[in-house]
């Protein structure tokens, strides 16, 4: 059999009766759907890159993502968990392509086995993502206005966090914070981490328009209350994340959420496909093209994750 379409009776390849692109309608349309989805994802990821590289400060991924369930719930294992998630997703892509390969051999039993592995991989990935979401949520990041304010108020009100050193320690243990040099109005500031900032800086009252409580800026840059009065850092009742940190949170939850929704849809589609294969519908049809089409979608989800991994976790 040739990979090229034979043009019978001198007809044109586009005049119908043959597959002009060498694939069935369903498969070609799946490819074009994935192309449109690639544009959507690249718009989001490009926006992320745009904000990332046009900001003077940005949360450091190995500081943000360093917890691991059970073994290191409070951090210390940077990027290990997300490395594991990536491996799980690539492995589920492997079992998916093996299911497609088994389908070409019309081996119903192997298709079922590999599809089950793929579903387990997808579900595990989603569980990992749920853990990571919940972890970052508890650190005060979210798409909208974070509930960080309330949490800090609670923590500081319970008597554990008082005084300047405690406030600084509290910031340090938030993990999102990381030492950076930043430039404000042409002046360079060392902020965060082990380095002490070189001074305090007053920002206008409009910086905290909604607050009538003493506020410590997340970068440790401004100590003030909502009326624009200078306050002692230890008297702060709220810590606000920096603009870049909040931007990071918004982009992280939106983009990984959009990707996670794709994974979730993929798992649902895989379960439907599995029931069809178990019932013997593919064997009855005589071909397993449906497995191939679902496989294309599943690999695409993996493909997007490869980019998400690089942009959010490595760069």
């Amino acid at each position, binding site marked *: *059999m040739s990979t090229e379409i034979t043009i019978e009776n001198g007809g044109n390849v586009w005049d119908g009766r043959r597959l002009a692109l060498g694939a069935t309608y369903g498969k070609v349309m799946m490819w074009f759907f994935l192309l449109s989805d690639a544009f959507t994802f690249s718009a989001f990821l490009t926006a992320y890159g745009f904000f990332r590289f046009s900001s003077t400060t940005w949360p450091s991924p190995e500081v943000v993502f360093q917890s691991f369930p059970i073994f290191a719930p409070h951090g210390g294992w940077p990027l290990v968990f997300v490395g594991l998630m990536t491996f799980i997703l690539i492995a589920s892509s492997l079992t998916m392509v093996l299911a497609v*390969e088994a389908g070409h051999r019309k081996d119903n039993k192997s298709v079922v086995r590999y599809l089950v592995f793929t579903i387990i991989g997808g579900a595990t990935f989603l569980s990992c993502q749920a853990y990571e979401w919940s972890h970052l949520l508890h650190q005060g990041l979210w798409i909208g206005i974070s509930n960080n304010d309330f949490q800090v108020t609670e923590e500081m009100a319970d008597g554990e966090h008082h005084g300047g050193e405690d406030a600084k320690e509290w910031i340090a243990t938030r993990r999102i914070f990381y030492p950076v040099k930043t430039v404000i109005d042409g002046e360079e500031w060392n902020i965060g981490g082990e380095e002490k900032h070189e001074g305090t800086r007053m920002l206008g009252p409009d910086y905290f328009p909604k607050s009538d409580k003493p506020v410590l800026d997340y970068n440790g840059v401004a100590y003030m209350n909502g009326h624009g009065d200078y306050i002692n850092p230890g008297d702060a009742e709220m810590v606000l994340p920096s603009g870049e940190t909040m931007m990071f949170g918004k982009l992280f939850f939106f983009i990984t959420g959009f990707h996670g929704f794709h994974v979730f849809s993929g798992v649902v589609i895989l379960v439907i496909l599995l029931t069809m294969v178990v019932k013997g519908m593919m064997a009855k049809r005589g071909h397993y093209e449906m497995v191939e089409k679902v496989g294309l979608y599943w690999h695409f989800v993996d493909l997007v994750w490869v980019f998400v*991994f690089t942009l959010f976790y490595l760069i």
Partner: protein
Amino acid sequence: MSDSPHDMVHDGAYEAEAYGLHVPHSSKKEILTVFVVLAVLTGIEFVLAFAMHPSVARTIIFLVLTIFKAAGIVLYFMHMKHELKRLMYSVLLPLIFIVYLVALLIIETQG
């Protein structure tokens, strides 16, 4: 004989096979090789995230490795390598718009 191309497909037969087409697929060995390469590239990225300080060079290395991984997935896992060139170009060429967008943003953010 009907005009509909679907009428040419026998009931229960794989449409592509009924048209006398080679159904693209990768061998098991090829699949496993690609998987190992993907895992190793991810491992290298993981190590570089700690071994190198953030820099333009590191970012470029990450992006190149990422594009290699993406190509591995598209060409082998999604069997694009074995599809007709026509389909391949129909899907891959429009991606040039993404390159254009990224190039524009890189130029503009240098400002």
